């Protein structure tokens, strides 16, 4: 997996992660081209596209498109399940995840992705194990009250 992105139906990028070194200019171009390619596609068409040397795998969940760019030898079907597993993990963590959860807790969405993928490879496929480490992380954090007492700005 070379990169993964999540975007809204209007094409707004909600989350992006790059696993191979890419210049900012190149990133912008990839993002723009992928919006052009993926958003206009009809429902029930195939979830794979060829874009230059990259294989693009995408799937729509409610208002969000989850996309991944693959290298030549990566397995498309499995990449589709990588996206699905990620959505499951978000769902489990947030409880019925929606786009707003990802907007407001963008840092959490990144942390969950980190627990699941590293350098573009699957780190841990067990939903249980990922959740345990997220829970552990949360227990390490200070209590809500402690924060609520702080000023907003």
């Amino acid at each position: 997996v070379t990169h993964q992105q999540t975007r809204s139906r209007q094409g707004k990028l909600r989350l992006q992660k790059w696993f191979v070194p890419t210049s900012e200019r190149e990133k912008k171009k990839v993002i723009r081209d992928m919006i052009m390619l993926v958003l206009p596609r009809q429902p029930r068409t195939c979830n794979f596209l060829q874009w230059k040397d990259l294989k693009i795998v995408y799937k729509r969940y409610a208002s969000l498109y989850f996309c991944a760019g693959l290298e030549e030898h990566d397995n498309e079907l499995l990449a589709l399940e990588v996206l699905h597993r990620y959505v499951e993990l978000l769902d489990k963590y947030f409880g019925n995840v929606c786009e707003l959860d990802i907007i407001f807790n963008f840092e959490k969405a990144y942390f969950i992705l980190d627990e699941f993928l590293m350098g573009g490879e699957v780190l841990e496929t067990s939903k249980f194990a990922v959740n345990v480490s997220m829970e552990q992380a949360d227990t390490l954090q200070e209590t809500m009250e402690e924060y609520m007492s702080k000023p907003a700005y």
Partner: protein
Amino acid sequence: MPAVSKGDGMRGLAVFISDIRNCKSKEAEIKRINKELANIRSKFKGDKALDGYSKKKYVCKLLFIFLLGHDIDFGHMEAVNLLSSNKYTEKQIGYLFISVLVNSNSELIRLINNAIKNDLSSRNPTFMCLALHCIANVGSREMAEAFASEIPRILVAGDTMDSVKQSAALCLLRLYKTSPDLVLMGEWTSRVVHLLNDQHMGVVTAAISLITCLSQKNPDEFKTCVSLAVSRLSRIVSSASTDLQDYTYYFVPAPWLSCKLLRLLQCYPPPEDGAVKGRLVECLETILNKAQEPPKSKKVQHSNAKNAILFEAISLIIHYDSEPNLLVRACNQLGQFLQHRETNLRYLALESMCTLASSEFSHEAVKTHIETVINALKTERDVSVRQRAADLLYAMCDRSNAKQIVAEMLSYLETADYSIREEMVLKVAILAEKYAVDYSWYVDTILNLIRIAGDYVSEEVWYRVIQIVINRDDVQGYAAKTVFEALQAPACHENMVKVGGYILGEFGNLIAGDPRSRYVPFCLMFTLLFFFSLVPCLLTCSQKLRPQSRRCCAAIARSATQMLNCSSELRVKEFHLQRFWSPFSQATVLEEMPPFPERESSILAKLKKKKGPGAVSVTELEDSKRESGELNGAGERGPDPSVMAASNASTPSPSADLLGIRSAVPVSAPASSGSLLVDVFSEAGPTASSGAVNDDGFLRFVCKNNGVLFENQLLQIGIKSEYRQNLGRMYLFYGNKTSVQFASFTTTVILDNCLQLNVQSKPVEPLVEGGAQIQQVLNIECLTDFSDAPLLNIKFRYGGALQNLTLKLPVTINKFFQPTEMASQDFFQRWKQLSQPQQEAQKIFKANHSMDTEVIKAKLLGLGMALLDNVDPNPENYVCAGVIQTKSQQVGCLLRLEPNAQAQMYRLTLRCSKDSVSKRLCELLAQQF
């Protein structure tokens, strides 16, 4: 705001995000962001020390602003401070910020590395994982230098927690990918391989990605992983769906691990050990059998996971290409998928079948699905699936079904999507040429192609049909007749007119018997009128026409002149014609067209450039070369050097001939899309100027010294070079292909990453007139051995636009070779002397070009070493010896290349007295064969 907010909430952040979301316009958003940035800046600069929470909150806000697409140029220091916090959440945000916004400030990197070092040695698994994630996310060279030796230790240590091991494995993989030279596995190798046996499935899953990557680079050291992988795979495949607990995904046991194991096995040839092989074949059969079982769940995730393993297994079967039984079963399975209701499976089945079609065992089996594939091409709703179907038709085409397939592709072209037309046209043109049994069919096909999709027929395609007609006597009459008929149509495509003009100009006399042929002059006049519309441009640009286009015009002109003599009503036009053709001498016009010298089909070259699935494989290219040879009757006529000379002599443009260099390279090959029209209206040329380094041409020059390094619609750069001892001289020829002057033309040689070379040059003239060519000489001295190549930056103004181009100069270490002849005994003695592991570099790789002995020999000689006969006991192998001359030292090098024609693989071994040289030569050469 969302209902759920677990762990910590940062209210200030949430408020800020809400504000941004409520902004009605882009301006309002920017205003709000600027306000926030000012606020944060003042907080960071303020006298009052901020507590951890505030720091975290502001850093997080900065991150959010950055992710919205705004630039952030401060806050790095505060983020680094967070790294050393003891609070997990602060540390975590700090790491996230650093990972997303890496800054190359060296002081900062030192601080970051320090913090990471502390966390790695903290023995707190959560902190260790955070640190490893940060290294993997940034993955810079500095980080690799600091941690590449530490991480393997963590990975194999007995007391490391499983979760840390997983992170360590993938972190190491990431570092290996960016800086392979810094990650030395050596002593760790066997312990890493044995991670395949680890109890914890998560550890195996992570470790196997690392092992796969390492195996690709060092297959020999890791080959023990094959048997371990097979036994692990066999255990998974035979386990019940509940055995693996949480590693079972929708009733499929460990799909990720299974696929990765199958992928790892694809790095190696089939296992030699009979027992291991038997076990593996059993696994593959079980996987194929499972595909026939009823699904355990209706969920798409279940079938996706199951089929992912199936497709990976099929890839392995295709990779081995040695089990006819499995290959045919795989083909049948894919055949079932071709009609599956799931679009994804149809897509993948078409894609896999493409590779299956190239195996001799399954080619016939693939062909039985032709009707289904044709149907897919016609009825699929999704363009990407149709594209795959077209690729597969191309791959399964052979002499027996070429006519059907070409006909189907032509009829599809009429309605094909614009995005894939050009590629389709090339494919049709190649198939028609490759499998033409009678040439009238070939001519018909290409003319149809022009009729249906004229805009997409590049000049390579229509040049090629002319070439073939010129070189084959038996098709000329037919071609003239057909093209004449085609031109009767009320509207003809420009390309049809060009082809028609040329063919009738040459062979119009062959249809003199046709009662309608008295119209030929009209027809030609029609053609000419077309060109007349370009007269004003032609008069100024005629000197810049490419040889082919020029020949084409000349042919029309000649026959028109002849016709005019007998056709009085057209004589009035003669005056214009004379004016038109005055730039060419009368003699040139009346000269008979020489046959085309045979050369590699330029359309193949073009399709090859396009890459992607379904691109032409090397063997096809060779085949086609051979076949087109017979097609053209090149055997009888062959290349005629005087032809080149003649056509060059009559070309007033210097850009057409780089001191004769062009005759050494395929003349029509430059696959720039410039058609005649583009050449003429050069203003329509590209305005895009790219600053990225272009190294397309670079690798082509490893084994040769002269040729065209770069060409686009504006500029052509040719190279001639010579080397002696540690010195070299390179002549660069910059040709302006347009009619417009290039201003402020400057070239700079950049040696930033290649300080081992000393390169001197004089600046070039700042003005390059349209059509002119200027020369620059570079004097090169090699001080010591080097790896990176110098860059050449070219800047100039074309029209108003600044063009900026950076190329890799093809100066490679092997240019400084002195060949050394030696006897077998000496060779092996020296080979043994160079036995330290670092002195050797080895690579096993797939053949990318013809494995023909003469071709290989020519390349090895071009490399600069002496090719030693009767040295290696196996006559199939090649051995070479040479000394690289640098100013500071001499490096002795020995090379051994072992081809395996059956597997289409090579093993390349280099031993040099200096390790960096072995490595670099190995890298360079692995891409040449």
